[in-house]
């Protein structure tokens, strides 16, 4: 029977319509997955349930919790409801906790707020129990811990603990795992599932990733630009998607671009026993400076025209390695050869070498100087030529680059803020492309994009790779992406490469335990769904 029913929910913020006639249900003890890309209004739907909407919000329709319309409650009543009947978990565990108060206080607070007569000791005892429940046993994680002393996963557990401390009827999870590594994500998802089962809570699971909910949700709601486009029992939904957007979404999540992938065996990039150490904070003023080894004797080859994947969880050293290869940071051991020549770090990297490689970064918003026009941005690599191209050469090159990434030549005169995230990544690729390098390093290049956009960019990369015979070093934490676009893949863990091989082989028959755990943890769409 239903715990939460949202009926014809509409929302305007400062007059701009955000939600239109959203209706959905969460059953007691049931899990409803709300899926949508950024801007689909899924999060605001959740916030309307909490009645924590930004200023200037004008909601319509009814939100019934146990048949009681919470839209009609006054602030006091709402405060009694929040954290008690309805709780919420947020996307960014790093910032969701008050940095200056201990986890114990913050969990106990939930209890004390709603049962003021509880003694502090009692509250703290319950806090300890709850933390235990979410997998933070008191002996390892005393109540006196501060958030900054814990990892993202652990913090997310604390947030969950605060949410479930009073065993609410309804738990709302807003992208609870998006910011986490796959393995952590899997653990958190299991935890949530477990809690729902134990306490018989209703769970409203909000995510952009179909796969995440595919194997846990009872019901699926798919939203697009403020509207519910499709909903129903999960099995049925994955069985037969009716709405074109749902299908597109479905298709995109499992997307595999076609690639010719003709890799010559002449090595373009050779990495030999590369070591990268960071100095760490000293214990004493005059104590010896301790070193942190971010990259530990890494070796590999990248053949011309090959697309090589490098997967690993955050902090495994893959970005550090990238910077070393780009010659941005010095290395403490081994050597890196590009086209046979040694890459030495710093400004001394020869321009010839730099001309051979370019890079595309993750963040489509941070990678451009907002004050320059696209033309100037894209042409920046020309700085690598001793003789600057004549303006007409430059313009044709620019036009070609932009068109080859699916933009128009006259976009060159626009400023970067006039483009969407996807377009910006295209521009980033154009910039990488304009001097026709042999190697392009893609550092999480598609991680920040919605699945549908991501699919397009992947296609583009595949296409460009074939057309210009480019080599890719494809760095990502997302296995599915790597799987879809690389010939070979390397798995990196705490500075070391633990496994490398043909992509298909690595994924189907992983040799290393870590690789196995990674693959196991990665959420997968039900096969029958992918088939359709």
């Amino acid at each position: 029977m239903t715990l939460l029913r949202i009926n014809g929910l509409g929302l305007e913020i400062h007059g701009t319509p955000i939600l239109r006639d959203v209706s959905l249900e969460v059953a007691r003890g049931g899990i409803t997955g709300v899926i949508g890309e950024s801007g689909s209004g899924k999060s605001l739907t959740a916030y309307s349930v909490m009645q924590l909407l930004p200023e200037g919000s004008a909601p319509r329709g009814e939100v019934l919790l146990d048949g009681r319309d919470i839209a009609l409650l006054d602030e006091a009543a709402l405060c009694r409801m929040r954290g008690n009947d309805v709780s919420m978990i947020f996307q960014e565990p790093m910032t969701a906790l008050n940095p200056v108060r201990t986890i114990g206080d913050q969990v106990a607070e939930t209890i004390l707020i709603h049962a003021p007569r509880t003694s502090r000791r009692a509250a703290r005892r319950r806090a300890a129990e709850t933390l235990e429940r979410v997998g933070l046993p008191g002996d390892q994680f005393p109540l006196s811990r501060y958030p900054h002393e814990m990892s993202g996963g652990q913090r997310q557990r604390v947030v969950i603990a605060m949410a479930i401390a009073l065993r609410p009827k309804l738990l709302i999870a807003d992208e609870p795992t998006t910011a986490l590594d796959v393995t952590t994500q899997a653990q958190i998802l299991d935890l949530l599932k477990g809690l729902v089962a134990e306490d018989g809570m209703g769970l409203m699971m909000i995510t952009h990733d179909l796969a995440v909910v595919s194997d846990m949700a009872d019901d699926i709601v798919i939203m697009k630009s403020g509207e519910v486009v499709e909903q129903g029992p999960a099995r049925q939904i994955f069985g037969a998607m009716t709405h074109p957007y749902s299908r597109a979404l479905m298709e995109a999540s499992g997307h595999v671009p076609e690639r010719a992938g003709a890799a010559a065996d002449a090595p373009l990039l050779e990495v030999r026993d590369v070591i990268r150490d960071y100095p760490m904070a000293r214990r004493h003023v005059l104590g010896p400076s301790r070193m942190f080894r971010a990259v530990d004797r890494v070796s590999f080859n990248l053949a011309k025209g090959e697309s090589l994947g490098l997967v690993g969880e955050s902090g495994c050293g893959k970005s550090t390695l990238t910077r070393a290869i780009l010659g941005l940071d010095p290395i403490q051991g081994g050597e890196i050869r590009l086209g046979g020549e040694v890459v030495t770090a710093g400004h001394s990297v020869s321009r010839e070498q730099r001309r051979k490689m370019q890079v595309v970064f993750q963040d489509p918003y941070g990678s451009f100087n907002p004050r320059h026009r696209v033309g100037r941005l894209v042409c920046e690599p020309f700085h690598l030529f001793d003789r600057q191209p004549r303006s007409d050469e430059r313009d044709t090159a620019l036009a070609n680059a932009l068109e080859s990434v699916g933009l128009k030549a006259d976009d060159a005169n626009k400023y970067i803020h006039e483009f969407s995230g996807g377009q910006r990544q295209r521009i980033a690729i154009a910039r990488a492309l304009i001097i026709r390098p042999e190697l392009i390093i893609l550092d999480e290049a598609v991680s920040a994009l919605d699945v549908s956009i991501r699919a397009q960019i992947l296609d583009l990369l595949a296409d460009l790779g074939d057309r210009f015979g480019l080599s890719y070093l494809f760095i990502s934490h997302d296995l599915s992406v790597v799987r879809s676009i690389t010939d070979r893949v390397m798995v990196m863990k705490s500075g070391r490469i633990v496994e490398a091989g043909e992509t298909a082989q690595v994924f189907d028959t992983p040799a290393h335990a870590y690789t196995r755990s990674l693959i196991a943890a990665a959420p997968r769409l039900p096969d029958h769904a992918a088939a359709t």
Partner: protein
Amino acid sequence: MLRYTLRRLVSLIIALAVASVVIFVAVEIVPGDPAAYMLGINARPDTVAALQAELGLDLPVHERYLAWVGGLVQGDFGTSYTYRTPIADIIGERLWVSLPLALYALILSTLIAFPAGILAATRRGSVADMLVMGITQLGVAIPNFWFAMLMVLVFAINLRWFSAGGFAGWEHGIAPGLKSLTLPAIALALPQASILARVMRSALLDTLSEDFIRTARAKGLTRRQTLWRHALRNALIPVLTIIGLQFSFLLAGAIIIENVFFLPGLGRLVFQAISQRDLIVVESVVMLLVFAVIIVNFAVDLAYAAVDPRLRRS
């Protein structure tokens, strides 16, 4: 934390050493001879020479520097040329005015700024907010010495509620002392309070837009509870910085106000010493002020750590 403290201490000492040289040089090149100044224009050259010898002004510069610094490290500030008394005593006297004045002003400004800032931040865009912002805008713009003059005109000369200046001294009890420091403290506090209130407001607004505030609300905390339990302490860090700056300013920067109200404070001591070419007093007092500022900043840094656990282990 220890490491952090030690590092700060080292740079602190270096700073002081450099400061001492800078100050000494700066003061030594000031034209004008204390002895000649003290003896006036009818003094005969041999008399002036006799006095210079008596004051040790005939020694070479480096010797005087070493003597001075050597004294400082042992807490001996030397002896005033003009007054022939230990500078430590002179400074002691003045600190009994300057320190209370600075604290008084600081307390006033905090008492005004905190409520105002919090009110403005929580009632953002409301009439109250507008009012606070407007008044503080004005408060920042008014030169404190002018404000002081107007207060003297109104409260001392016309209403005769306060004496127009002078310091009653503590020996007659706290009340008269505080009374004579009240107008000056207000004059000093007004601009400080305005700045502090604005900082408080913006810091609070920033904190209130943080994720963990949303989390707290989701827990069921009311706006008020969220403010007191979560926002304030986080907003305190920038506020602390300003308070630290203001205290050191108030200690040294009150010269003009001390003048308007004719208070025998440190600022006026140094000013007067410069004019009398009582160089060693100037050197010692400026040194002391620099020291005070550096110490205060140091204290503020430690205060951060108290407020923000993230800074405790570095």
